[in-house]
């Protein structure tokens, strides 16, 4: 009956769990581009070093890690140059952590604008993840620069064909960060505790992931624990692809991919349900 009347929009109460509208998101792709531009351009405005911050941050983290974990704590790095070893982990982890933490406050941080005008809410976290991807790309170039520096100095680096799987892994990290982020952001509209938990959790999560130590240092009987940490096998594969250290466990990678998709799916479902009414609870 309504169809004959060809209404363009029918607004109804929230019902059901699967009302995710991909077509609408696509229609707003210009907005995603502009959000990315805004966040990318505006982030370091009125700073002296400007875009240099994109590089300084992983660089200094790497230096600190090299000194503390490499020199003082003497954690082995599978015979790799410690700088490269840590940087690989940091760049990958940073990308994931940024995606997670900055999407996790989507609703709360954008309550002002969401309260005034409608557009697909998913544009915000998606654009945040794209900004993260751009940052990651810049930092990856830094890493590759160091890679060649050490390579030419004769470090025992053995890049493998797994490099070709990199784009997939990058996408997976983005999806994982996005999925977890929107899951958390949907829940924080009601339980604000989660926003604290996220900051804390990503910090701790880094130590639960082989960033500052290699997988080979984990006793065999505990290795299975790393199978349920989807980031662990991604980071490990990332290192193996470039440096040839550690190993790739396709089984773990498959579990990781499965978990990523599951988290992403739950996140999307919850997000698209919450976005309709979160203005009443935020």
């Amino acid at each position: 009956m309504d169809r004959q009347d060809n209404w363009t929009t029918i607004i109804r109460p929230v019902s059901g769990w699967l009302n995710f509208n991909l077509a609408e998101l696509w229609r707003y792709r210009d907005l995603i581009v502009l959000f990315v531009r805004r966040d990318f351009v505006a982030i370091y405005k009125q700073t002296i070093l400007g875009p240099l911050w994109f590089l300084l941050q992983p660089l200094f983290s790497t230096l600190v890690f090299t000194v503390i974990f490499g020199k003082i704590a003497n954690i082995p790095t599978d015979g790799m140059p410690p700088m490269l070893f840590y940087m690989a982990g940091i760049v990958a982890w940073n990308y994931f952590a940024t995606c997670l933490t900055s999407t996790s406050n989507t609703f709360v941080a954008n309550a002002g604008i969401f309260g005034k005008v409608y557009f697909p809410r998913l544009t915000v976290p998606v654009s945040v993840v794209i900004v993260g991807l751009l940052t990651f790309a810049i930092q990856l170039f830094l890493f590759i620069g160091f890679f060649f520096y050490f390579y030419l100095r004769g470090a025992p680096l053995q890049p493998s064909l797994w490099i070709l799987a990199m784009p997939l892994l990058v996408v997976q990290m983005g999806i994982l960060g996005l999925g977890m982020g929107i899951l958390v952001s949907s829940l924080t509209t009601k339980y604000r505790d989660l926003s604290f938990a996220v900051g804390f959790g990503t910090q701790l999560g880094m130590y639960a992931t082989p960033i500052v130590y290699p997988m080979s240092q984990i006793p065999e009987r505990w290795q299975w624990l790393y199978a349920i940490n989807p980031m662990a096998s991604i980071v490990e594969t990332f290192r193996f692809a470039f440096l040839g250290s550690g190993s790739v466990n396709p089984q773990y990678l498959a579990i990781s991919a499965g978990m990523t998709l599951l988290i992403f799916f739950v996140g999307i479902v919850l997000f698209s349900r919450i976005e309709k009414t979160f203005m009443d609870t935020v």
Partner: protein
Amino acid sequence: MSDTVIKVEHLSKEYHLGTISHGTLYRDLQSWSARLLGKEDPNSKIDSIGRRVRNSAFKALDDVSFEVKQGDVLGVIGRNGAGKSTLLKIISRVTAPSSGAIKIKGHVASLLEVGTGFHPELTGRENIFLNGTILGMRKAEIQRKLDGIVDFSGVEQFLDSPVKRYSSGMYVRLAFAVAAHLEPEILLVDEVLAVGDIQFQKQCLGKMKEISEGGRTVIFVSHSLQTISSLCEKCLLLEDGRIKRFGATTEVVLEYLGGGGSSCANFTNLGKVVGDSFVQLLMGEVINNKQEPVNEIDIREPLAIRMRFRVLQDSAIRYIPNFHFIVPGGLYAFVSSPQKLHRLSSGDYETTCYIPGNFLNEGAYYVGLAISSYEPGLTIHFFEPAVLTFNIKDPMDGSVGRYGFGYANVMPGVVRPQLDWGVQKLT
């Protein structure tokens, strides 16, 4: 109904008062599982007679149904908390209704607040694109309209400086310029006209008129009854989330003001006497020059207020009938009383105050009816404030001081007399 563009059906919106959740995840899960199993929520409150209160819910909108036709300019009025903004928020999809539905034909754009999503660090130009896309435009579309937007905003010179350096006026102008070029089929406006200078308000109102004349639909929420009267043919009065009245603007505005005030008030069948032992008020009415009671008068037409009263005893008192003209907001327009007073013997009388055309301004007026006397001191025999209401209507055909359509804005002031002017060249 092919030309209905918005159809609101039994729309309700509930807000839960107090705590939104029970605060802990455990209790929420408990309530949720109880709901899922169809059991009583163990965490719901219990009222004084032992029933479970489902929720201390507040209905911001309660079973609201109405239709808006294409090209209508619909005004929405009501006191604070009546549900006006909630209605707009649901139509603009910022929040979802609790029950009911809204069916919409065409793209909806809202000016719920201009400048949404402006980023202070970005330049004016960048913000035009950002804001435009947030409001639902495509990038190419904005590119096409860019010149128009920039012209309308009048901030050309500053287009490439960050908007944080803008004055608040420039900021608002730029924001409105973007919104004004949306060309939606349905435009929602909420009180945005409160900001900006007069010149700018004029542009805004002109743009709204242009949009409605282009066959598009406008829903306009405002507290300015004057603006509502001059822009909207139809009006929706909300009270406590329900529709109190929906219809022609004049009758709705009058209902809102007087809470049912009318052009004619009879005091003989009230069951109580209005007046004292000297005089009593019988009735009052607003009439046009054909002696018919009216509640809406063309601004060019004369009108009259007529009052009937009864003198109960012969005395030396000279009664002063006086009419109090008050505009919405409580401001006195003026008080009028006859020039000449007479001693009146007992009996029924009728007194009429004639108001010429082209004197009052457009908008609503209340009339209070009173009789007082000055012998020896001031005695108020009766004073019934705001018992009559009427609305002065500007035909908006450009005939009354509007110089064609040169000035489409609200004329300020409580009166709008047409006075004689002279222009002389100085030698």
